[in-house]
């Protein structure tokens, strides 16, 4: 009995890794999985069999994570994979993102649900362009916690000065971008220093190991600064003898908390009522908070359907048909001005048109390229979108859930673009229009 209870008390941390192939990302992931005993005997045997069949001497731990035929054939990682491991303290979902050329959309995908990102650096190389890209993406996606893992410390004689210089340079850069918190850890993924076990080779380091940090970083949500938001997914109406008048608005709370008795407004209609009850999957509760899936009952029978947003009357976002956002284009076909798309925000999907692409961001130096005309796969840029119906959008910096959207191709359903509403960290100044006669400016 005690086992069940103890194991049930853990929390869940979603995190993502970022790093290019040579930084030792696979080794770090392999070691976290292996040393937390999440790689089981039959999986290891399968890797050993496959490695031997390929003529490799030792087991190739990358085979644990490269799951697809084409990946094994080409020795590359195609796509984000999700991995699971647990310690006595916490359960982990790791978005394992590949480090090759298509890193941007993959890292955006992985980071969109992550509460923490581990950015790997090779201690011999220090902060490089790729590191700056990873930091910029973490800042852009507003990942709450960033870990800088300075890897391959064994190859720089475990020198404190090497680590200190890298950590200082990276932290200064990341904080300037708006990353709220950086934890720098000197490691050797290969030798196992400070990944799961504290290193005997770096007495000068007094901080946590990577796993200790993952186990203890807070995953609670800052409810006091959150605007409460409930996108309505589905209206529950049993219409049975037992529940003839039950009319519940089901959804997952995207931010903040709701209480019974609270005055709420439904957007975009603007009608108001009071919460008369909250059902938490069949059980009545008096308060519910972010990421809980609930069913809300209102005092008045007002017209509410899927796609509506329930918010506190005293804290309603404005509705708008003109959205400015920073986007990451994830499809192979480009996004152009004039493109007619579908925009999914919360539980609402509306028609929209791309009115303008004012700039494209160069992640390497955070410079803005004005009026690029189009965004191609992996590009990050600013976009102005006009929607067919008003939407209640928050700024992504206030709410990752109600400040985000995706663009969908109405013809074939392709997911085109990931969008984050509001000002970008990288555009403090208006873009200078230096392109009046370059033919791209519509």
């Amino acid at each position, binding site marked *: 009995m005690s*086992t*069940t209870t103890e*194991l049930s008390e*853990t*929390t*869940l941390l979603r995190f993502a890794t970022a790093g290019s192939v040579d930084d030792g990302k696979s080794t770090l992931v392999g070691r976290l999985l292996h040393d937390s005993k999440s790689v*089981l*005997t*039959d*999986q290891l045997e*399968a890797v050993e069999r*496959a490695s031997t069949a390929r003529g490799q001497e030792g087991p190739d731990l990358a085979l644990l994570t490269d799951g*697809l*035929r*084409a990946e094994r054939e080409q020795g590359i990682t*195609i*796509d*984000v*994979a999700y*991995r*699971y491991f*647990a310690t006595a303290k916490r*359960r982990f*979902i790791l978005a394992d993102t590949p480090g090759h050329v298509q890193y941007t*959309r993959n890292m*955006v*995908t992985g980071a*969109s649900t992550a509460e923490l990102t581990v950015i790997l650096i090779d201690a011999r190389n220090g902060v490089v362009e790729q590191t700056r890209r990873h930091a910029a993406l973490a800042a852009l996606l507003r990942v709450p916690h960033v870990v800088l893992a300075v890897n391959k410390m064994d190859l720089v004689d475990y020198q404190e000065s090497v680590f200190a210089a890298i950590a200082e340079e990276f932290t200064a850069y990341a904080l300037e971008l708006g990353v*709220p*918190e950086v934890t720098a850890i000197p490691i050797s993924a290969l030798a196992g220093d400070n990944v799961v076990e504290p290193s005997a080779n770096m007495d000068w380091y007094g901080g946590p190991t990577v796993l200790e940090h993952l186990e203890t970083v*807070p995953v609670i949500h*800052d*409810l*006091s600064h959150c605007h409460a938001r409930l996108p309505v*997914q*589905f209206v*529950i*109406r*049993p219409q*049975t003898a037992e529940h003839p008048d*039950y009319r519940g608005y*089901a*959804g*997952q709370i995207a931010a903040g*908390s709701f209480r019974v008795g609270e005055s709420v407004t439904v957007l975009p209609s603007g009608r108001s009522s009071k919460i008369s009850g909250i059902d938490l*999957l*069949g059980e009545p509760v008096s308060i519910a908070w*972010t990421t*809980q*899936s609930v069913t809300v009952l209102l005092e008045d029978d007002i017209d509410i359907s*899927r796609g509506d947003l329930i918010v506190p009357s005293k804290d309603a976002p404005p509705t708008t048909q003109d959205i400015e956002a920073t986007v990451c284009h994830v499809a192979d076909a480009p996004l152009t001005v004039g493109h007619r798309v579908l925009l*999914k925000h919360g539980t609402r999907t509306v028609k929209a048109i791309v009115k303008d692409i004012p700039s494209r961001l160069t992640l390497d130096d955070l410079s803005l390229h004005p009026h690029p005309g189009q965004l191609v796969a992996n590009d990050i840029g600013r976009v102005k979108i006009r929607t067919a119906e008003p939407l209640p959008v928050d700024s992504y910096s206030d709410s*990752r*859930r109600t400040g985000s959207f*995706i663009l*969908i191709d109405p013809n*074939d*359903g392709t*997911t085109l673009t*990931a969008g984050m509403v509001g000002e970008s960290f990288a555009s403090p100044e208006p873009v200078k229009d230096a392109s009046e006669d370059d033919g791209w400016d519509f």
Partner: protein
Amino acid sequence: MTTTVAAVAEGTDAPYALSHLDALESEAVHIFREVAGEFERPVILFSGGKDSIVMLHLALKAFAPAAIPFSLLHVDTGHNFPEVLEYRDRTVERHGLRLHVASVQDYIDRGVLKERPDGTRNPLQTLPLTEKIQAEKFDAVFGGGRRDEEKARAKERVFSLRDEFSQWDPRRQRPELWNLYNGRHAPGEHVRVFPLSNWTELDVWQYIAREGIELPEIYFAHEREVFSRSGMWLTPGEWGGPKDGETVEKRLVRYRTVGDMSCTGAVDSDAVTLDDVIVEIAASRLTERGATRADDKMSEAAMEDRKREGYF
């Protein structure tokens, strides 16, 4: 940053952090409701195995106090455990659900499918499944697949688009961002939906224990006649065992997965309660598929190849 967080939670994780089971449950319920909101004819694949039982339990909670707006679909291999079929029918009746059955035996009897020499019927399920989906015009098909089961499944999306031949193309998957699932599909195409994507085997068992969910008895240790083949304890039956040289014996066993009798093995176990099972799973050094599924051992890419063809 740290100060505001601490101020809200008064220095502790409680009460605004969800336990990992609550977080997984909430996410799965969100997925069920998205499908209910966006699709015309969703169906839940229901085998009577623990993952599909948990799926059904989550669906019931997602729409309570209303009935679930989905029907069930079982692909009957013809080699199912009688205890599991009995459980299936009892469950369907108790919740007043509609059950569709796609029968592998029918296909064999009609000569459309041919029995394999090894007697394994798992790969034969794909055609009856995909034809049933087309015939009934199901546009969303819930499966209990978990990403922790197998490395090809680790690459699976929560909403996984299948073409008109039900095929999965891992290179053409849509990126999944935030919790904004994209269910768009053309007529004839459908979407496989995996609400348990982020669950592990242990999560499933812990959740079953927490919710007090009833399971078929074969999941718990019991005396059973079995014989050994390829290192697995199989249940004898008309499906093709034991053969010459294979001897039946009585052992104390239980099943970790439930599937076709010809390729689902039992494990030696004395776990008779849910807590026993959880302790056993937590200590096991084998994955459930490595321990008890013959079909995944056929080749390094067995699961990926079957999934590409339309398997769940």
